[in-house]
Protein backbone atom coordinates (compact mmCIF):
# COMPACT_ATOMS: atom_id res chain seq x y z
CA UNK A 1 0.00 0.00 0.00
CA UNK A 2 1.33 3.45 -0.88
CA UNK A 3 1.75 6.08 1.77
CA UNK A 4 -1.17 8.47 2.08
CA UNK A 5 -0.33 12.14 1.84
CA UNK A 6 -1.37 14.59 4.50
CA UNK A 7 -2.95 17.86 3.41
CA UNK A 8 0.24 19.77 4.21
CA UNK A 9 2.28 17.30 2.13
CA UNK A 10 -0.13 17.81 -0.76
CA UNK A 11 0.24 21.58 -0.42
CA UNK A 12 4.03 21.25 -0.42
CA UNK A 13 3.84 19.31 -3.71
CA UNK A 14 1.51 21.91 -5.20
CA UNK A 15 3.76 24.76 -4.08
CA UNK A 16 6.79 23.14 -5.71
CA UNK A 17 5.13 23.61 -9.12
CA UNK A 18 6.35 26.72 -10.98
CA UNK A 19 3.85 29.57 -11.24
CA UNK A 20 2.29 30.39 -14.62
CA UNK A 21 3.98 33.22 -16.46
CA UNK A 22 2.28 36.58 -15.76
CA UNK A 23 1.07 36.81 -19.35
CA UNK A 24 -0.45 33.29 -19.27
CA UNK A 25 -2.15 34.13 -16.00
CA UNK A 26 -3.56 37.41 -17.29
CA UNK A 27 -4.66 35.71 -20.49
CA UNK A 28 -6.67 33.16 -18.49
CA UNK A 29 -8.24 35.93 -16.39
CA UNK A 30 -9.09 37.98 -19.46
CA UNK A 31 -10.53 35.18 -21.57
CA UNK A 32 -12.75 34.02 -18.69
CA UNK A 33 -14.53 37.39 -18.77
CA UNK A 34 -17.67 37.48 -20.85
CA UNK A 35 -17.12 40.91 -22.39
CA UNK A 36 -13.52 40.79 -23.59
CA UNK A 37 -12.51 41.13 -27.22
CA UNK A 38 -9.61 40.00 -29.33
CA UNK A 39 -7.91 43.41 -29.18
CA UNK A 40 -7.43 42.89 -25.44
CA UNK A 41 -5.78 39.54 -26.17
CA UNK A 42 -3.49 41.19 -28.72
CA UNK A 43 -2.43 43.91 -26.29
CA UNK A 44 -1.66 41.36 -23.65
CA UNK A 45 0.39 39.10 -25.91
CA UNK A 46 2.39 42.13 -27.08
CA UNK A 47 3.67 42.65 -23.53
CA UNK A 48 5.44 39.27 -23.69
CA UNK A 49 8.19 39.05 -26.31
CA UNK A 50 8.71 35.33 -25.89
CA UNK A 51 5.00 34.56 -26.28
CA UNK A 52 4.82 36.86 -29.32
CA UNK A 53 7.66 34.93 -30.94
CA UNK A 54 5.96 31.60 -30.21
CA UNK A 55 2.65 32.76 -31.67
CA UNK A 56 4.38 33.87 -34.88
CA UNK A 57 6.20 30.57 -35.07
CA UNK A 58 2.97 28.60 -34.73
CA UNK A 59 1.03 30.64 -37.29
CA UNK A 60 3.85 30.20 -39.79
CA UNK A 61 4.20 26.47 -39.12
CA UNK A 62 3.56 23.98 -41.90
CA UNK A 63 0.25 22.91 -40.32
CA UNK A 64 -1.48 26.09 -41.46
CA UNK A 65 0.10 26.02 -44.91
CA UNK A 66 0.05 29.80 -45.39
CA UNK A 67 1.36 31.02 -48.71
CA UNK A 68 3.25 33.94 -47.24
CA UNK A 69 4.63 34.49 -43.77
CA UNK A 70 2.62 36.45 -41.22
CA UNK A 71 4.90 38.89 -39.43
CA UNK A 72 2.37 41.02 -37.58
CA UNK A 73 1.21 39.74 -34.20
CA UNK A 74 -2.21 41.34 -34.69
CA UNK A 75 -2.80 39.35 -37.85
CA UNK A 76 -1.37 36.18 -36.32
CA UNK A 77 -3.77 36.35 -33.37
CA UNK A 78 -6.81 37.11 -35.45
CA UNK A 79 -5.89 34.22 -37.75
CA UNK A 80 -5.26 31.68 -34.98
CA UNK A 81 -8.02 32.78 -32.64
CA UNK A 82 -8.11 33.02 -28.90
CA UNK A 83 -8.11 29.28 -28.19
CA UNK A 84 -4.82 28.60 -29.88
CA UNK A 85 -3.20 31.62 -28.22
CA UNK A 86 -4.31 30.33 -24.81
CA UNK A 87 -2.98 26.84 -25.66
CA UNK A 88 0.38 28.29 -26.62
CA UNK A 89 0.59 30.36 -23.45
CA UNK A 90 -0.35 27.41 -21.23
CA UNK A 91 2.02 25.07 -23.05
CA UNK A 92 4.77 27.64 -22.72
CA UNK A 93 4.11 28.24 -19.08
CA UNK A 94 3.38 24.76 -17.76
CA UNK A 95 4.59 22.50 -20.56
CA UNK A 96 6.63 20.39 -18.17
CA UNK A 97 3.53 19.43 -16.19
CA UNK A 98 1.56 18.52 -19.30
CA UNK A 99 4.38 16.48 -20.81
CA UNK A 100 5.06 14.60 -17.63
CA UNK A 101 5.02 10.83 -17.92
CA UNK A 102 2.05 9.75 -15.80
CA UNK A 103 3.73 6.57 -14.59
CA UNK A 104 1.24 6.24 -11.71
CA UNK A 105 -1.52 5.80 -14.30
CA UNK A 106 0.66 3.62 -16.57
CA UNK A 107 0.52 6.35 -19.21
CA UNK A 108 3.41 7.65 -21.28
CA UNK A 109 4.84 11.15 -21.63
CA UNK A 110 2.56 13.30 -23.77
CA UNK A 111 -0.60 11.28 -22.99
CA UNK A 112 -1.86 13.97 -20.59
CA UNK A 113 -1.42 16.77 -23.13
CA UNK A 114 -3.08 14.71 -25.89
CA UNK A 115 -5.99 13.83 -23.59
CA UNK A 116 -6.35 17.46 -22.53
CA UNK A 117 -6.24 18.75 -26.08
CA UNK A 118 -8.93 16.28 -27.17
CA UNK A 119 -11.04 17.12 -24.14
CA UNK A 120 -10.64 20.81 -24.99
CA UNK A 121 -11.80 20.36 -28.57
CA UNK A 122 -14.68 18.10 -27.53
CA UNK A 123 -15.80 20.48 -24.75
CA UNK A 124 -15.75 23.38 -27.20
CA UNK A 125 -17.87 21.38 -29.67
CA UNK A 126 -20.29 20.34 -26.93
CA UNK A 127 -20.55 23.99 -25.84
CA UNK A 128 -21.25 25.26 -29.33
CA UNK A 129 -23.60 22.46 -30.46
CA UNK A 130 -25.61 21.95 -27.30
CA UNK A 131 -27.51 25.21 -27.38
CA UNK A 132 -26.29 26.19 -23.92
CA UNK A 133 -25.06 29.66 -23.10
CA UNK A 134 -21.42 28.71 -22.60
CA UNK A 135 -18.42 30.34 -24.23
CA UNK A 136 -16.85 27.72 -26.53
CA UNK A 137 -13.45 29.36 -26.00
CA UNK A 138 -13.74 29.07 -22.25
CA UNK A 139 -14.87 25.44 -22.56
CA UNK A 140 -11.73 24.81 -24.62
CA UNK A 141 -9.41 26.38 -22.04
CA UNK A 142 -11.16 24.53 -19.23
CA UNK A 143 -10.71 21.27 -21.13
CA UNK A 144 -6.98 21.92 -21.44
CA UNK A 145 -6.61 22.44 -17.70
CA UNK A 146 -9.14 20.01 -16.21
CA UNK A 147 -6.78 17.11 -15.40
CA UNK A 148 -3.72 19.05 -14.26
CA UNK A 149 -3.99 17.40 -10.84
CA UNK A 150 -2.93 14.08 -12.34
CA UNK A 151 0.55 15.45 -13.00
CA UNK A 152 0.77 16.29 -9.28
CA UNK A 153 -0.20 12.94 -7.77
CA UNK A 154 0.96 10.52 -10.47
CA UNK A 155 4.38 9.85 -8.89
CA UNK A 156 2.71 8.93 -5.61
CA UNK A 157 0.35 6.52 -7.38
CA UNK A 158 3.23 4.52 -8.83
CA UNK A 159 2.38 0.81 -8.96
CA UNK A 160 -1.22 1.26 -7.77
CA UNK A 161 -3.03 0.95 -11.13
CA UNK A 162 -3.74 -2.83 -10.99
CA UNK A 163 -5.10 -2.51 -7.43
CA UNK A 164 -7.16 0.56 -8.33
CA UNK A 165 -8.74 -1.28 -11.26
CA UNK A 166 -9.38 -4.32 -9.11
CA UNK A 167 -11.10 -2.14 -6.50
CA UNK A 168 -13.45 -0.77 -9.17
CA UNK A 169 -14.12 -4.17 -10.74
CA UNK A 170 -15.01 -5.64 -7.36
CA UNK A 171 -17.23 -2.63 -6.53
CA UNK A 172 -15.02 -1.73 -3.60
CA UNK A 173 -14.59 1.66 -5.29
CA UNK A 174 -17.25 3.40 -7.36
CA UNK A 175 -14.67 5.05 -9.61
CA UNK A 176 -11.00 5.94 -10.02
CA UNK A 177 -11.35 9.02 -7.81
CA UNK A 178 -12.22 6.93 -4.76
CA UNK A 179 -9.41 4.55 -5.66
CA UNK A 180 -6.97 7.50 -5.77
CA UNK A 181 -8.13 8.62 -2.35
CA UNK A 182 -7.67 5.08 -1.01
CA UNK A 183 -4.14 4.96 -2.43
CA UNK A 184 -2.67 8.39 -1.69
CA UNK A 185 -5.26 10.23 0.38
CA UNK A 186 -6.35 12.65 -2.36
CA UNK A 187 -7.80 12.42 -5.83
CA UNK A 188 -6.59 14.31 -8.89
CA UNK A 189 -9.44 16.85 -8.76
CA UNK A 190 -8.56 17.82 -5.18
CA UNK A 191 -4.87 18.14 -6.08
CA UNK A 192 -5.71 20.17 -9.17
CA UNK A 193 -8.00 22.40 -7.12
CA UNK A 194 -5.16 23.31 -4.76
CA UNK A 195 -2.95 24.20 -7.71
CA UNK A 196 -5.73 26.19 -9.37
CA UNK A 197 -6.07 28.29 -6.20
CA UNK A 198 -2.33 28.92 -5.96
CA UNK A 199 -2.24 29.82 -9.64
CA UNK A 200 -5.19 32.15 -8.92
CA UNK A 201 -7.16 30.83 -11.87
CA UNK A 202 -10.59 32.33 -12.58
CA UNK A 203 -13.42 30.76 -10.59
CA UNK A 204 -14.94 29.03 -13.64
CA UNK A 205 -11.69 27.16 -14.30
CA UNK A 206 -11.22 26.32 -10.62
CA UNK A 207 -14.68 24.73 -10.59
CA UNK A 208 -14.04 22.72 -13.73
CA UNK A 209 -10.81 21.34 -12.29
CA UNK A 210 -12.52 20.47 -9.01
CA UNK A 211 -15.85 19.10 -10.25
CA UNK A 212 -15.31 17.71 -13.74
CA UNK A 213 -16.22 14.23 -12.45
CA UNK A 214 -19.06 15.50 -10.21
CA UNK A 215 -20.54 18.34 -12.26
CA UNK A 216 -23.72 18.49 -10.19
CA UNK A 217 -21.64 19.76 -7.26
CA UNK A 218 -20.39 22.83 -9.16
CA UNK A 219 -21.99 26.20 -8.43
CA UNK A 220 -25.05 27.02 -10.52
CA UNK A 221 -23.22 29.82 -12.40
CA UNK A 222 -20.61 27.48 -13.86
CA UNK A 223 -22.47 24.19 -13.87
CA UNK A 224 -23.24 24.08 -17.61
CA UNK A 225 -19.56 24.72 -18.37
CA UNK A 226 -18.49 21.98 -15.96
CA UNK A 227 -20.94 19.58 -17.65
CA UNK A 228 -19.51 20.49 -21.07
CA UNK A 229 -16.01 19.58 -19.90
CA UNK A 230 -17.37 16.45 -18.17
CA UNK A 231 -18.75 15.30 -21.53
CA UNK A 232 -15.62 16.43 -23.40
CA UNK A 233 -13.52 14.35 -21.01
CA UNK A 234 -15.70 11.29 -21.61
CA UNK A 235 -15.59 11.79 -25.38
CA UNK A 236 -11.77 11.98 -25.27
CA UNK A 237 -11.62 8.75 -23.25
CA UNK A 238 -14.11 6.99 -25.53
CA UNK A 239 -12.03 7.86 -28.56
CA UNK A 240 -9.05 6.07 -27.05
CA UNK A 241 -7.28 9.12 -25.64
CA UNK A 242 -7.34 8.67 -21.89
CA UNK A 243 -4.43 9.03 -19.54
CA UNK A 244 -3.79 5.33 -18.94
CA UNK A 245 -5.34 3.03 -16.36
CA UNK A 246 -8.09 5.40 -15.25
CA UNK A 247 -9.59 5.77 -18.72
CA UNK A 248 -13.39 5.30 -18.63
CA UNK A 249 -13.27 4.47 -14.91
CA UNK A 250 -15.64 7.29 -13.97
CA UNK A 251 -19.44 7.39 -14.15
CA UNK A 252 -21.01 9.73 -16.67
CA UNK A 253 -23.52 12.03 -14.97
CA UNK A 254 -26.76 11.88 -16.99
CA UNK A 255 -27.79 15.17 -15.35
CA UNK A 256 -26.05 16.93 -18.25
CA UNK A 257 -29.41 16.69 -20.01
CA UNK A 258 -30.72 19.54 -17.83
CA UNK A 259 -28.08 21.90 -19.26
CA UNK A 260 -27.00 20.57 -22.64
CA UNK A 261 -28.97 19.00 -25.40
CA UNK A 262 -27.12 16.33 -27.31
CA UNK A 263 -28.45 13.58 -29.59
CA UNK A 264 -26.53 10.42 -30.52
CA UNK A 265 -25.95 11.93 -33.99
CA UNK A 266 -24.59 15.16 -32.42
CA UNK A 267 -22.21 13.01 -30.43
CA UNK A 268 -21.03 11.13 -33.52
CA UNK A 269 -20.45 14.42 -35.33
CA UNK A 270 -18.47 15.71 -32.36
CA UNK A 271 -16.29 12.57 -32.36
CA UNK A 272 -15.58 13.15 -36.06
CA UNK A 273 -14.72 16.81 -35.56
CA UNK A 274 -12.46 16.05 -32.60
CA UNK A 275 -10.52 13.53 -34.68
CA UNK A 276 -9.86 15.89 -37.55
CA UNK A 277 -9.24 19.04 -35.47
CA UNK A 278 -6.92 17.20 -33.12
CA UNK A 279 -4.40 16.19 -35.78
CA UNK A 280 -4.24 19.72 -37.14
CA UNK A 281 -3.95 21.39 -33.77
CA UNK A 282 -1.40 18.94 -32.46
CA UNK A 283 0.78 19.45 -35.50
CA UNK A 284 0.64 23.23 -35.25
CA UNK A 285 1.24 23.33 -31.50
CA UNK A 286 4.28 21.09 -31.79
CA UNK A 287 5.92 24.03 -33.47
CA UNK A 288 5.32 25.73 -30.14
CA UNK A 289 8.04 23.86 -28.29
CA UNK A 290 10.71 24.06 -30.96
CA UNK A 291 13.39 26.62 -30.61
Amino acid at each position, binding site marked *: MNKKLSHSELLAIVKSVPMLTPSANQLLQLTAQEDHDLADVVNLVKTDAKLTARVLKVVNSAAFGLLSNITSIDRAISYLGERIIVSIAIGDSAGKLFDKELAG*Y*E*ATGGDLWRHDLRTAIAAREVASQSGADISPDLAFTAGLLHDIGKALISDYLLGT*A*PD*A*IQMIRSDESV*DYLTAEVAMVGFDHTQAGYELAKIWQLPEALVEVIRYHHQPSQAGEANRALVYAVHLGD*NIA*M*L*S*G*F*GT*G*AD*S*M*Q*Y*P*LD*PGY*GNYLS*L*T*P*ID*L*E*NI*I*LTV*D*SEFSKLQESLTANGEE
Partner: protein
Amino acid sequence: MGQLTLGVGEYGASNIIGEEVKTYALGSCIAVILLDPQTRTIGMAHIALPDSSINKNKAAEKPGYFADTAIPALLEEMARYGCHKKGKGMVVKLCGGANVMDTNDTFQIGKRNALAIKKILWAHDMGAVAEDLGGNFSRTVSVSVESGLVTLSSPGRPSWQL
Protein backbone atom coordinates in the same frame (compact mmCIF):
# COMPACT_ATOMS: atom_id res chain seq x y z
CA MET B 1 9.74 -7.74 -35.87
CA GLY B 2 7.84 -5.84 -38.54
CA GLN B 3 4.62 -4.17 -37.62
CA LEU B 4 1.67 -2.84 -39.55
CA THR B 5 0.14 -0.18 -37.28
CA LEU B 6 -3.33 1.07 -38.02
CA GLY B 7 -4.64 4.40 -36.73
CA VAL B 8 -8.28 5.34 -36.17
CA GLY B 9 -10.27 4.82 -39.37
CA GLU B 10 -7.48 2.91 -41.09
CA TYR B 11 -7.52 -0.63 -42.43
CA GLY B 12 -4.88 -2.92 -43.86
CA ALA B 13 -3.67 -6.46 -44.37
CA SER B 14 -0.44 -8.43 -44.17
CA ASN B 15 0.76 -11.89 -45.15
CA ILE B 16 4.36 -11.38 -44.08
CA ILE B 17 5.42 -14.06 -41.61
CA GLY B 18 6.98 -12.41 -38.57
CA GLU B 19 4.88 -9.29 -38.93
CA GLU B 20 2.23 -8.08 -36.46
CA VAL B 21 -0.90 -6.15 -37.32
CA LYS B 22 -1.55 -3.75 -34.47
CA THR B 23 -3.85 -0.96 -33.37
CA TYR B 24 -3.66 1.14 -30.22
CA ALA B 25 -6.19 2.28 -27.64
CA LEU B 26 -9.58 1.15 -28.89
CA GLY B 27 -12.07 2.96 -26.69
CA SER B 28 -15.54 2.79 -28.19
CA CYS B 29 -13.86 1.97 -31.52
CA ILE B 30 -13.86 -1.63 -32.71
CA ALA B 31 -11.12 -3.61 -34.43
CA VAL B 32 -12.55 -6.02 -36.98
CA ILE B 33 -9.99 -8.76 -37.51
CA LEU B 34 -10.26 -11.05 -40.53
CA LEU B 35 -8.01 -14.11 -40.62
CA ASP B 36 -7.82 -15.99 -43.91
CA PRO B 37 -6.43 -19.49 -43.28
CA GLN B 38 -6.21 -20.20 -47.02
CA THR B 39 -3.73 -17.45 -47.84
CA ARG B 40 -2.49 -16.85 -44.27
CA THR B 41 -3.46 -13.21 -44.50
CA ILE B 42 -4.48 -11.04 -41.57
CA GLY B 43 -6.71 -8.03 -42.17
CA MET B 44 -7.82 -5.41 -39.68
CA ALA B 45 -9.94 -2.26 -39.63
CA HIS B 46 -10.07 0.25 -36.75
CA ILE B 47 -13.67 1.45 -36.96
CA ALA B 48 -14.78 4.60 -35.09
CA LEU B 49 -18.47 5.08 -35.92
CA PRO B 50 -21.44 2.94 -37.01
CA ASP B 51 -22.76 4.73 -40.07
CA SER B 52 -21.22 6.81 -42.84
CA SER B 53 -24.45 8.66 -43.62
CA ILE B 54 -23.47 11.42 -41.16
CA ASN B 55 -20.52 12.47 -43.31
CA LYS B 56 -20.13 11.11 -46.83
CA ASN B 57 -17.00 13.17 -47.50
CA LYS B 58 -15.22 11.64 -44.56
CA ALA B 59 -16.33 8.18 -45.71
CA ALA B 60 -14.89 8.80 -49.17
CA GLU B 61 -11.62 10.04 -47.69
CA LYS B 62 -11.38 7.40 -44.94
CA PRO B 63 -13.72 4.43 -45.56
CA GLY B 64 -12.23 2.58 -42.58
CA TYR B 65 -13.79 5.11 -40.23
CA PHE B 66 -17.38 3.81 -40.50
CA ALA B 67 -18.67 0.26 -40.08
CA ASP B 68 -20.69 0.26 -43.33
CA THR B 69 -17.79 1.41 -45.52
CA ALA B 70 -14.90 -0.24 -43.65
CA ILE B 71 -15.87 -3.87 -44.07
CA PRO B 72 -16.28 -3.77 -47.89
CA ALA B 73 -13.02 -1.77 -48.11
CA LEU B 74 -11.15 -4.31 -45.97
CA LEU B 75 -12.49 -7.24 -48.02
CA GLU B 76 -11.39 -5.48 -51.20
CA GLU B 77 -7.94 -4.88 -49.74
CA MET B 78 -7.63 -8.54 -48.73
CA ALA B 79 -8.67 -9.66 -52.22
CA ARG B 80 -5.41 -8.06 -53.38
CA TYR B 81 -3.67 -10.69 -51.25
CA GLY B 82 -5.55 -13.47 -53.02
CA CYS B 83 -8.33 -13.82 -50.44
CA HIS B 84 -11.90 -14.59 -51.44
CA LYS B 85 -13.63 -11.35 -52.46
CA LYS B 86 -16.65 -12.01 -50.30
CA GLY B 87 -14.67 -13.24 -47.34
CA LYS B 88 -15.53 -16.92 -47.78
CA GLY B 89 -13.65 -19.12 -45.31
CA MET B 90 -12.39 -16.20 -43.25
CA VAL B 91 -12.35 -16.25 -39.47
CA VAL B 92 -13.76 -13.09 -37.89
CA LYS B 93 -12.78 -11.70 -34.49
CA LEU B 94 -13.98 -8.47 -32.91
CA CYS B 95 -12.61 -6.43 -30.04
CA GLY B 96 -13.12 -2.99 -28.50
CA GLY B 97 -16.48 -1.24 -28.32
CA ALA B 98 -16.06 -0.02 -24.75
CA ASN B 99 -18.61 2.27 -23.13
CA VAL B 100 -18.28 4.83 -20.37
CA MET B 101 -19.92 4.01 -17.02
CA ASP B 102 -23.31 5.28 -17.98
CA THR B 103 -26.98 4.50 -17.86
CA ASN B 104 -27.78 6.86 -20.68
CA ASP B 105 -28.15 5.63 -24.28
CA THR B 106 -26.57 8.60 -26.05
CA PHE B 107 -23.06 7.69 -24.99
CA GLN B 108 -23.31 3.97 -25.80
CA ILE B 109 -21.22 4.44 -28.95
CA GLY B 110 -19.36 1.17 -28.36
CA LYS B 111 -22.63 -0.75 -28.31
CA ARG B 112 -23.91 0.98 -31.46
CA ASN B 113 -20.63 0.23 -33.23
CA ALA B 114 -20.86 -3.46 -32.31
CA LEU B 115 -24.45 -3.73 -33.55
CA ALA B 116 -23.68 -2.00 -36.83
CA ILE B 117 -20.64 -4.18 -37.48
CA LYS B 118 -22.49 -7.41 -36.74
CA LYS B 119 -25.32 -6.37 -39.05
CA ILE B 120 -22.90 -5.71 -41.89
CA LEU B 121 -21.06 -8.95 -41.28
CA TRP B 122 -24.38 -10.86 -41.43
CA ALA B 123 -25.16 -9.17 -44.71
CA HIS B 124 -21.86 -10.61 -45.97
CA ASP B 125 -22.73 -14.04 -44.54
CA MET B 126 -20.00 -13.64 -41.99
CA GLY B 127 -20.07 -13.89 -38.22
CA ALA B 128 -17.54 -13.53 -35.44
CA VAL B 129 -16.15 -16.71 -33.89
CA ALA B 130 -14.67 -14.75 -31.01
CA GLU B 131 -15.28 -11.34 -29.54
CA ASP B 132 -14.09 -9.23 -26.66
CA LEU B 133 -16.48 -6.31 -26.72
CA GLY B 134 -17.89 -3.79 -24.28
CA GLY B 135 -16.81 -3.14 -20.73
CA ASN B 136 -15.34 0.18 -19.71
CA PHE B 137 -11.68 -0.06 -20.56
CA SER B 138 -9.45 0.74 -23.49
CA ARG B 139 -7.82 -2.07 -25.48
CA THR B 140 -4.67 -2.30 -27.60
CA VAL B 141 -4.72 -5.26 -29.94
CA SER B 142 -2.08 -7.02 -32.00
CA VAL B 143 -2.33 -10.05 -34.28
CA SER B 144 0.60 -12.23 -35.24
CA VAL B 145 0.53 -13.02 -38.96
CA GLU B 146 2.38 -16.27 -38.36
CA SER B 147 0.15 -17.77 -35.66
CA GLY B 148 -3.03 -15.72 -36.03
CA LEU B 149 -2.91 -15.20 -32.26
CA VAL B 150 -4.80 -12.11 -31.11
CA THR B 151 -3.27 -10.44 -28.05
CA LEU B 152 -4.97 -7.66 -26.12
CA SER B 153 -3.67 -5.32 -23.47
CA SER B 154 -4.97 -2.45 -21.36
CA PRO B 155 -3.17 -0.21 -18.84
CA GLY B 156 -3.23 -1.69 -15.36
CA ARG B 157 -4.27 -5.18 -16.54
CA PRO B 158 -2.28 -8.26 -17.51
CA SER B 159 -2.49 -8.95 -21.27
CA TRP B 160 -4.84 -11.64 -22.56
CA GLN B 161 -5.62 -13.54 -25.73
CA LEU B 162 -8.66 -13.93 -27.92
